[in-house]
């Protein structure tokens, strides 16, 4: 049943990208990070589907949109389990998982209120110190922001 459902959803676009296994609570963060609000392609968002792994998951279907790895890996901060299906002519031609990058520029906010990046207009820069339970270290104040306290700009 579940598998059939997924197939139906996937086959609904001719060419494009399906992003699955997004934690439902982070759907809007993913939309924000990928800048989907500025893209004029057809897109479908689904949220609060049941998922054994995530509890509640969300799914994004984008018609005619393909991402470079570097671009899509940005969502790893908020959707580390996300899976991509690349669709060409109604068929899944490639499956990808996202990978937490070594460095993150922009996107995240440093959780330290005394950090310079929270006081002047500076693009944040982090090195990823843990990929499993994502934790990032600020290039400026050297403090660590963990997944629980991560805010997306």
């Amino acid at each position, binding site marked *: 049943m579940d598998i059939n459902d997924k197939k139906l959803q996937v086959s609904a676009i001719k060419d494009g990208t399906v992003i699955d296994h997004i934690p439902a609570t982070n759907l809007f963060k993913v939309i924000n990070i990928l800048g989907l609000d500025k893209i004029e392609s057809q897109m479908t968002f689904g949220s609060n589907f049941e998922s054994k792994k995530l509890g509640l998951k969300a799914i994004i279907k984008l018609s005619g949109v393909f991402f470079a790895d570097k671009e899509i890996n940005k969502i790893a901060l908020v959707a580390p389990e996300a899976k991509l299906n690349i669709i060409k002519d109604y068929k899944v031609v490639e499956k990808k998982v996202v990978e937490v990058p070594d460095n993150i520029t922009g996107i995240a906010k440093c959780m*330290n209120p*005394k*950090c*310079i*990046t929270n*006081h*002047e207009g*500076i693009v944040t820069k982090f090195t990823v110190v843990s990929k499993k339970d994502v934790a990032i270290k*600020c*290039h*400026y*104040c*050297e*403090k*660590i922001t963990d997944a629980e306290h991560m805010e997306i700009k």
Partner: protein
Amino acid sequence: MENKHLVSITDFSREEIFRILDLAAEFEENPNQNLLNNKVIATLFFEPSTRTRLSFESAISRLGGKYIGFTDASSSSVSKGESLKDTIMTVANYSDMIIMRHPIEGSARWASEVSKVPIVNAGDGANQHPTQTLLDLYSIRKTQGTLDNLNIFFVGDLKYGRTVHSLLQAMSMFNTTYNFISPIELQIPNEYKMFLDKKGLKYYEHRELDEMLKHADIIYMTRIQRERFSDPMEYEKTKNSYVLKNQMLEGTKENMKVLHPLPRVNEIHTNVDENEKAYYFTQALNGVYTRQAIITHILGLK
């Protein structure tokens, strides 16, 4: 050519640290050298720190240089709402190097990215104070003859003590054994224990300042501040438990020295001052030589 800066102690390799310490020893031999002739150094203190500022200004003066700057933000354009970036970009036009102290963490790193002259971090909030760390290393090597295989006792506020964290990181290059003595509220944060675990270094935590001290090569004292306690009763109860008194130094190692970044309040009893193991005032003097070494090294004059 890319500028050299000193923002964080972790920016310096073991070799660079030794280079600075060797230079500092040269300046101790011969402190008055006219190497900064015609150079202008800016000392920007966005928050007051009299001791650090005087130490830098003494170092510049002994090198024959001139300095310009301000001693707290209220006497500068910062009070008119100028951004740090604008202040730095402007002052970089007036000087050959900027030495800065700022209450916001990461400010020195940011300054180093917008400045066309070298930046020396003289403290950025609770983050880094690398020139203090280098003078601590100089004091340790001078009194112990080496930095290798030493047993260092850190006492007092190990949670917020920036000097403790930086020295701990720097000493991890030298197979150090660490002993941490603090009240539970101010114990060494987990991230530093994880750091030492990763490096495979031994550390021990204690709540009492007692005969354990006889194992120490260095006792590094820090001030316990009242405002760090959420419960003022806890402060009253603990404040006297971490006071070093002269009789406690009986039976300690011959080579042992007591260090303190200063200012001291009451955590080292004044009866320790006469003990030859008390080293904190000489440590402050070493700060001038170390800063002479840092300035001349970064400007490529040594």
